[in-house]
């Protein structure tokens, strides 16, 4: 097994942190942009770039209401994250 098996969209430090943080929320919960930024410590500009990529892939969804942007992991995003962690586990087990 090689690193090619790891989803390149998640296998980036910043996006891995975003997805892992959102995966810690129970299903059906959303997190505000500012709280997510606070937890993972990225600049707003950097965070927006990565969120956009994840949203384009339908891994996350975002919603803006009354000046508050909230984000959440979608079902495909949760599935992709599960597949990524399994692939990582298999890869490290095989090393």
């Amino acid at each position, binding site marked *: 097994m090689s*690193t*090619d*098996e*790891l*989803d*390149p*969209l998640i*296998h*980036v*430090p*910043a*996006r*891995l*942190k975003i997805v*892992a*943080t959102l*995966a*810690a*929320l*129970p*299903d*059906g*919960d*959303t*997190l*505000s942009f*500012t*709280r*997510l930024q*606070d*937890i*993972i410590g*990225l600049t707003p*500009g*950097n965070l927006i*770039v*990565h969120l956009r*990529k994840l949203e384009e*892939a339908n891994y996350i969804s975002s919603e803006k209401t009354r000046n508050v942007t*909230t984000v*959440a992991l979608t079902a495909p995003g949760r599935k992709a*994250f599960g597949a990524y*962690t399994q692939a*990582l586990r298999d*890869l*490290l087990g095989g*090393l």
Partner: protein
Amino acid sequence: MNHAPDAAAPGNGGAFDPQEAAALLDQTARQARRQLQPSPPWLLATRAVMVLAALGAIWLSVRGQHPYRGPTAADIPVLVAFIVVNFALTVGVRHRAMAGVQGRSRFTQPEIAVMVVAWIVTIVAILVLAAAGVSYSHYPTTLLIMPGLAWAAVSGARAGWRRSATGLAVAAVGVAGLFAGSAGAWLVAAVGLCAIFIVRAAINARQRRASRP
């Protein structure tokens, strides 16, 4: 995989070793769980110790009373301090954990209303029972029955069976206290609530370990 790698994206930092990824994943997941959990195991364990110490101290001071006169003037500050610290700690930790979180984890207005009404009904019922001279009205455990059942109902409605079981356990402690006598009810409340908090802390800690990526 379907997506092309984007090494030039900000924050990529070039090649990302799988071992580094595993370490980052573990650290991030741990940090997120710690920051987003409204009832962390340490809080539940602290509440277990506090409830055992506060209500246990009151039981020690009332167990020799014949006839039973209730907590002494020296016990009241202990009881008030326990209630205030417990409430402040619980609300403070929950408020911090839930900042920026929306969705199913947040209590809805009707759910909050059910809990508030349960407490009001309990207090009114106890006052009525006390006026009628019913001895149970002086038992601390009597206070637990109605809110425990309300919590179980609210939790059951939102499919949180674990919280529902907690509510039922609190109500069961309340019922058990009815058979323990005036002084013994303090001990039942101390030990029963302490046990519930410890079990919840153990379950939450196990859940945390199980949810590690």
